[in-house]
């Protein structure tokens, strides 16, 4: 329990080691959840196209006729080798889907987080500092509305508004067709490709396409952040060390920034990290709303097709992403707050 400053590397090491059991639990859950779902996946996916013998052959090819334990171990082994399987309905390797479509989801999510932080933190600080004023009341209402409003509805309203006010502003997809044609695919992330190609016209085009979907998705998260930051600021403003700083004659503005605001933002890291999973599920809706070529849209399509290999592969990937983000958040937290390290 002795908490010396030098224990940071140890903390990070322990945290990284904990990834393995976390992953294992998650993978097991994903595997079991899909097996207990009623119905036979092969019949569900392609039952109306093939006869009984062909279906049986498909099942055997997928290894579904083997005992559950064997399937489970094979699944774990494959995931370790980053093999997420091949879809039943259209026979694409899931890894290909992740590589091709993951980039769009990644930039969408990052953009949404940037919007959420850019809106949520200043509004939250303001509301906490000017507690119980008209500004505070307004911001609190914003927080509730932003959190409660359904994404697809907000997205549609924004699209209607933007189409009316700025008819030329892009309202769907990640880039215009010219941009998609001209930007060479190197990383799977079209924004990065455009930057690497030094193609400023395309970069601007892609960024413009990002604004609406990222804002829509970020709005949800900003509601959570506003309320959290507000409560934290109110708390830190009443904390003993803030009063002690004032008693030492530290100027009011500096006390506010260095003591009250800074300390109020530490818990935001944790909560924003926890909201990552929520944001991913929000991304699925956002992608559907804005015709975004990302993993979420892909996942919805495979769920509809009842292609459980595809669903299992994509869900596994989402789970891995959530685990990695939570590790990153813990490490970031330890870097910022010296009391976290153990």
């Amino acid at each position: 329990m002795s908490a010396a400053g030098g224990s940071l590397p140890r903390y990070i090491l322990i945290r990284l080691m904990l990834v393995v059991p976390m992953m294992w639990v998650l993978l097991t859950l994903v595997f079991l959840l899909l097996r207990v779902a009623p119905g036979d996946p092969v019949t569900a996916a392609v039952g109306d196209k093939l006869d009984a013998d062909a279906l049986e052959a498909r099942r055997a090819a997928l290894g579904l006729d083997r005992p559950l334990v064997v399937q489970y171990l094979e699944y774990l082994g494959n995931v370790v080798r980053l093999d997420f399987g091949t879809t039943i309905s259209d026979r694409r390797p899931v890894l290909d889907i992740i590589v091709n479509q993951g980039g769009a989801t990644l930039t969408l999510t990052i953009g949404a987080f940037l919007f959420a932080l850019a809106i949520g933190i200043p509004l939250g600080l303001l509301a906490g500092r000017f507690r119980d004023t008209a500004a505070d009341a307004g911001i609190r209402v914003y927080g509730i509305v932003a959190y409660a409003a359904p994404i697809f509805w907000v997205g549609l309203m924004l699209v209607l508004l933007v189409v009316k006010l700025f008819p030329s502003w892009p309202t769907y997809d990640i880039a215009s067709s010219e941009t998609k044609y001209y930007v060479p695919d190197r990383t799977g992330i079209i924004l990065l490709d455009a930057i690497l190609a030094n193609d400023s016209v395309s970069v601007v085009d892609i960024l413009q396409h990002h604004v609406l979907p990222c804002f829509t998705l970020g709005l949800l998260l900003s509601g959570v952040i506003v309320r959290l930051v507000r409560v934290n600021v109110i708390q830190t403003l009443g904390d003993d060390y803030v009063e002690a700083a004032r008693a030492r004659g530290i100027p009011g503005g500096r006390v506010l920034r260095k003591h009250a605001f800074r300390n109020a933002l530490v818990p935001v890291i944790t909560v924003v990290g926890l909201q990552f999973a929520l944001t991913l599920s929000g991304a699925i809706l956002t992608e559907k709303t804005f015709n975004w070529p990302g993993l979420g849209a892909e996942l919805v399509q495979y769920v509809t097709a009842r292609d459980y290999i595809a669903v299992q592969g994509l869900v596994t990937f989402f789970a891995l992403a959530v685990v990695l983000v939570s590790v990153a958040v813990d490490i970031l937290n330890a870097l910022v707050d010296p009391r976290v390290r153990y």
Partner: protein
Amino acid sequence: MSTTTTDRTPDAGAVLDVRDLRVWYGTEKGAVQAVDGVDLELRRGEILGLVGESGCGKSTLGRGLLGLLPDGAARDGSLVFDGKDLLAMSPREAYKRRGKSLGMIFQEPLTRLNPLMRVSEHFEETLRTHERGISKKEVEARSLEALRVMGIPPTRFRAYPHEFSGGMRQRLLIALTLVLRPAFVVADEPTTALDVLVEAQIIRILHDLRSTYDTSMLLITHNLGIIAEACDRVAVMYAGKIVEVGEAREVFSRPQHSYTRELLRSTISLSTTGLNFIEGAPPDLSDPPPGCRFHPRCPDAMTVCGQREPVLRQVRDGGSDAACWHAEVSEGTDAGRALSAEETQPLERKEIDVADEA
């Protein structure tokens, strides 16, 4: 009253001269006057103890001197420090003197340091605020010197607050207050949150400060043992007023005010055989009793005590100042002899209503 007291010439050796200080809190029931017309002066290098029951206004008085009061509080009177009245200058000017000239040591050492800042950053922030353009080297030298006086090794300079024990954190905070060498420090129950051994250590440190830093201190405590050990003079506070003030030895050996005497009787020591306590509770400050505020609980109360307020003055040559009719009568002062026979009759008490007391 305020006009007659402010024209008194301040003591030439006084670091801080407080005249008729009054502090109000805004509450739902209306304004509550927690400090009512307090006069005090602190001489250079002197430790003045301030004692009294919980809720008598000790902390409010200490905080009122620095202006560390919650929103909705107000203060009036005069606070002459270094020849200037802190209450007459702009809030901005007064704020600049905080830390630099008037320091504060708090009751809760565990929560008074910012957990995200290293000890070194606390010192750097404090020194840079008050001494613009101070070099990094000098910041470190001054801080390490202050820490050394408090017995904290220089190797811990870059550690975080949570890596220190409660007693060490209080020493850190004392070092952080004294690194600016303020002429006057308020220490508000600095040992209440600490265990007995650490308490003795901190009291020793505070006691020795005048030789190292030449600082005057108002030491607020409810522990009379600490006063006897560390203070030169002591002021006894009851219901927002100073009821007795004098040399610590004098107040302890020959208390003049009945409240002081009762307070001393309530102290627990090794020779204590039974527990003494003062009946009743301190009055509600939104509606204090007339006359002497202690008279409803006072064993020596006379009729006059409930009618006229006694004045704080010396009742015996070489003794402490007390605001007590009983002391005036028993010492045979002019004011005491001027009282009528009727006024010196023991006070007839109405039975205290049980519901009232609750």
